[in-house]
Every structure is written in C-alpha cells, then in structure tokens.
C-alpha cells in the first residue's frame, strides 16, 4: 500500500497548477503567431564561403528540427525558409529580398559581414528582428535597432589576442598574417592597434588572398625578420595551409589566432606536430566540453551534416533557442521580440551566457584554447573587456 501525505498532495497540486499557468501563458503568447511560424535564413551554401555558411545553416536547421520534433513553440511548428547567398553581396541582397517576401517573424543572416552590411537597410525597413553572426565589429554599429549579433566579433579578438600573446606568453616580436578580406584585414588593423597600445611593433604584417594556396613567401618574410611568434587570422582551410607550410619549411613559432586554429575542419588535415602548441582565442567550440550532452550534440550534428560543429554552429543553434524562449514569452509581435532581445540578460546557451549590450551584441565570452597534438584544450573562458 502507498501512503500519500496531505503535504505531498498539496505540493504536487501546486506544482501542477504552476506548470499549467506557465504553459497557458506560453500558449497565450504564442497565440499571436501564425502557424507555422515563419523564420528566414540567408547564408552562403555555395561558392568559396560555403564552408562557413553551412555552419550557420546547420546550427539553425538543427535547432529548428529539434524544436519541431518536440512539438514546436507552444504547439506551432517553425517553417524555416533558407536562401543561398553564394559568395556575393549582391546575391546576398537578392536572397534577403526573397526571404522578406515570405514575411518571416525573425531573420537569421550569415557570419559574412559584407553580406550583412548589404542586407541591413532592407531588413531594418521591414522592421523584422535580424540575428547575425557577422564578425566585423562595425556590423552592430550601423544604428539598426533590429539587428542583433550572437557571436563574438573581431574587435573583441583584436584586443584579446595581442594582450594574451604579450602579457601571458611573453612574446614581443610577432609577425601578423591575415586573410585579405573584410574579415582578416579588419582584424589585422585592430591587432596592430592593440599591439601599439602594448608598445609592441609587429616585425612583419602580411596577408594572403582568400584563394591563395601558397603562403610560403609570407612565412619566409616573417621568419627572416626574426619574429618570435605569429598572429594568424583566417578561415579553417587557409589556416590549415599556413600550418602545413610552416611544418614543411621547418618554421617553429608560437602561433595564436582565431577559432580556425582549433576548428575540427583544420585539425582533421594537420598532423599532430603541425597542430601541437597552437593557441586560439575565439567563439567557444563544443569539442572541448566535458559535458556528455554537448559532445553527443556535436556528434549528432557531425553525423547529420558530415561537417563538424564549430563556434558558429553553436552560436546559431543557441540563437534559435533564445528566440524560442522569447516567443514563448512575448509571442510573434516583432517589436516585442526585438525589445526582448535587447533586454537579454544572462540567457544560458550551450556554452556561454548571452547578454545584450546597447549596440545589440549578445556574446561577450570567448574561449582561450591550446592544441595538445591534434586535440584542442580549453585553457579557460575569457570575458570581453568591460564584461
């Protein structure tokens, strides 16, 4: 025989009533939503930025599929419309116009800043919450109150990388190498400015075109100028080539860069000796987590898309869940979603907590990593200055 005390019954009843209240509130808020709830995404799925763009697609789509499989948002499924931007800003603008025709409740755009710059005016005029991972620091300085960024940006990295290199690793003669596009050259300028504040002058500042395959000339220049370290800023594919060519040329320098240094796509193509000892500061990656749920998530993403999840995948995945929690509270009224995004405080995502600043940046925690052989290890999270 089971004996249920009056106290247990009362507590149980209270919990059920409380839960029902929350569900009702959520249902009431989501009642303002169309069914299905239209979300829009533009990202690069073809062209030379496809590897980056698919990370955004994978993060958003994976979260949407999970939410829909779990019953959607208060019973309403999400209908995700995706448009390919290719590698061109003009195509990005056209893709956004097609997305806007579907009158989505929210729009995600890629991490490619020139695309986001091209799209911002149109999205702002449509008064739709616009969530991006674009890394150029100026993306959120465009004055759009509809634009929010949920990934760390170059400005944060440009401050932290030189500081860590000089103060923690004790290196004072760095060479700089960056991919010659909006992403790399913007970071290179920021890094030079941050080094100047630390009274350090780089011995060489070099770059390479995104399509370049041979970076040996730049590496030899940095070596010939007697650098004691290398600051490397690029995409996983070209960072891999630089690391391989350093190994081929026998150049051994303490190397620090963005998250590409520890991305699984980079490490898969390097030997242990080529990868070992390299540092990275950037968005948090799932592979170094000790949480089995997160590791399992990373495995499921890899199995589904044949592309390892990276910092961008995590960021876009988190963004969808952040929106889910907001829509459950405020419904699908766009100004209300925007206001809730602007008021985000300590919303816990997969690896970091998100907090909105006045400009619309929500990510302020980065990871410092060091490769042990081909395995990245998290040295620790680091907060952006002022957070």
């Amino acid at each position, binding site marked *: 025989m089971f004996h249920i005390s009056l106290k247990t019954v009362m507590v149980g009843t209270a919990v059920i009533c409380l839960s029902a209240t929350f569900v009702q509130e959520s249902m009431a808020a989501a009642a303002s939503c169309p069914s299905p709830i239209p979300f829009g995404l533009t990202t690069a799925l073809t062209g030379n930025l*496809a590897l980056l763009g698919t990370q955004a697609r994978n993060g958003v789509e994976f979260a949407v599929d999970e939410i829909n499989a779990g019953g959607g948002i208060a019973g309403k499924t999400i209908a995700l419309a995706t448009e390919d931007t290719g590698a061109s800003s003009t195509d990005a603008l056209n893709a956004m116009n097609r997305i806007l025709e579907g009158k989505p409740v929210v729009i995600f755009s890629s991490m490619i800043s020139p695309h986001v710059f091209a799209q911002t005016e149109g999205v702002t005029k449509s008064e739709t919450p616009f969530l991006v991972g674009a890394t150029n620091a100026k993306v959120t300085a465009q004055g759009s109150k509809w634009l929010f960024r949920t990934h760390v940006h170059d400005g944060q990295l440009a401050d932290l990388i030189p500081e860590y290199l000089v103060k923690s690793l004790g290196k004072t003669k760095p060479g700089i190498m960056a991919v010659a596009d909006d992403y790399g050259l913007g970071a290179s300028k920021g890094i030079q400015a941050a080094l100047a504040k630390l009274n350090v002058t780089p011995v060489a500042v070099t770059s390479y075109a995104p*399509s370049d*395959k041979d970076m040996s000339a730049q590496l030899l220049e940095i070596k010939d100028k007697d650098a004691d370290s290398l600051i490397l800023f690029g995409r996983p594919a070209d960072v*891999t080539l630089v690391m391989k060519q350093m190994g081929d040329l026998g150049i051994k320098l303490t190397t620090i860069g963005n998250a590409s240094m520890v991305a699984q796509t980079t490490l898969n193509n390097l030997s242990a000796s080529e990868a070992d000892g390299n540092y990275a500061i950037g968005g948090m990656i799932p592979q170094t987590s000790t949480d089995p749920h997160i590791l399992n998530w990373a495995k499921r993403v890899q199995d589904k898309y044949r*592309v390892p999840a990276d910092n961008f995948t995590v960021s876009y995945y988190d963004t969808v869940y952040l929106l889910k929690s907001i829509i459950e509270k405020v419904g699908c009224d766009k100004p209300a979603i925007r206001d809730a995004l602007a008021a985000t405080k300590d919303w816990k995502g997969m690896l970091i907590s998100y907090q909105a600043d006045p400009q619309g940046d929500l990510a302020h925690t980065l990871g410092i990593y060091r490769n042990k052989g081909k395995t990245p290890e998290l040295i620790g999270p680091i907060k952006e200055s002022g957070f």
Partner: protein
Amino acid sequence: MGQLVVNGLALGSIYALVALGLLLIFNTVQIVNFAQGQLLMLGAFIGISGAVTHELPVAIAWIVTMAAMALIGIVFMVLVYFPLRGRPPFLVILTTIAMGIVLENLALIIWGPLPVSLPSPVRGAPLRFAGVVISMHQLFIFATLAAILLLQFLLLTKTRFGILMQATAQDLHTARLVGIPVNRTIAVAFAFGAMLSGVAGLLVAPIFLAEPTMGGSLGLKGFVVSVIGGFGNLPGAVLGGLFLGLIETFGARYISSNFRDAYAFIVMIAVLVAWPRGLFGEKSSEKV
C-alpha cells in the same frame, strides 16, 4: 632566396600542368576550356574518394582517377563541345565557364564544403641543403611535370595520333574528308586533357588540400600561363608556368603579399603588350 626559388618553381609547375591540359584541347579543337580548373578539382576529389574514403593504395587511387577523368573528359566533350560545334567559338567558351560552375556545385553536393587532404604517393624526409628545404612531394611534382611535357611532346610530334590531332585542329572539315576519324581524335584529346587536369589535382591535393572551389583560381592561372607562354606552345606553357610561380612568390615576399594575384594579370598584360603572341608564340597565318 633559395627557398623562394624552390617554392616558386613548385607552384609554377602546378600552373604549368593545368596549362598543358588546356593546350591539349586547344591544339585539337581551338577552344579554351575554362572548366579546366574544375576538372582538376574533380581529379583531386576522385583521388581522395579512392585513397581516403575507400582506403585504396595511393597508386591504385591514381589509376582509378585517371580512368575516371578520361571518362569525364569524354562526357564533357559530349555535353559541352559537340552540341555547339560549328557555332562561334565564344559560345563554346561560355559553355565551358557554365560547366565549371556546374561541376563546382556538383562537387559541393557530392563531397561537401570541407577541405580534405590526399596522401602524397611519395614519402621520405625532405632534402635540406644550405638552409633550403625541398620536400619529396615537390620533387615528385617537378619529375611529373618533366615526364608529362616529354610524353606530350612525343605524342604530338612523333605519333600518328599527334599528326591527326594537328590536322583536325587546322581544318576539321578537310580532316574528315581525307578520312581522319575526327570525332575519335577529339574524344581522345578531351580524355587526355581531363587526365592531365586529374594529375594536377592529384599533385595539388596533398599540399593545397581539395575543396570544391579550388579549381577556379588554378584554372585561371593556367590560362594566364598559356597566354604568357604563347597559346599552343608546350615549352612556352611550362616556362610560362615556372616564370609565373617565381613572379608570384618573389612579388609576395619583396613587394607586397596583398597583390599576389594581381601580379599574374599584370605580367599577362605586359607580355601581351610587348609580345602579342606570348613569349614563345609562333607567328600564324589566317586562311582568307
């Protein structure tokens, strides 16, 4: 300095290989195949599928790739060249550009966007002397280029097939009238041209990684090299390739790495202004 020379020559050898494939087709049908770079990319990925995905011995993966590329070359000819034969050449050229885009996207669908590496068929510690490092793979690239140049030279000048190709290139209709199997000759040219791109892809993938968009830039450089060397000239293509590799490497080291790609086109324009037929181009006469 020595290291820059070695690396410049290795890079130039890749450009030269792309140009040799380009020339083989040009010398037969007088068409510039702007999808040559994408054929290179296909060669790299087929090699990776064999050696990495299916874990075949690298040598077997190379043979499989060569056979596949020959077939792809013929399919390419059937889809791109035959339907537009006899039309203005620019139509065929535009179609090769379109086909390049199709191949790039096809590769993206089949292999995904991830960059992948292919093991080199040669192993061993790099050679080092006077501070200069030469990897075994770089030596293999030099040797392969020399062998292909020699074979292609012998094929075109010393074999019956080479003479048939030249006759086809000079006048397709007359060649057919005198009994030359024109279609078969063109098919072999496309098959060999694609195989040469496949070799270039197999040589590039161990050092530059393979990704769907890798062919665009390399194909364009192959075209630049052909123009610099003199379109249709085999030694010109090789010397043009080596020259461009050195220019790019030294330019990136001593002028600025920001304009590395621009050097190729600046040199091409300068050569065209000074020598309109390229450095080794032969004077040609046109039928009236």
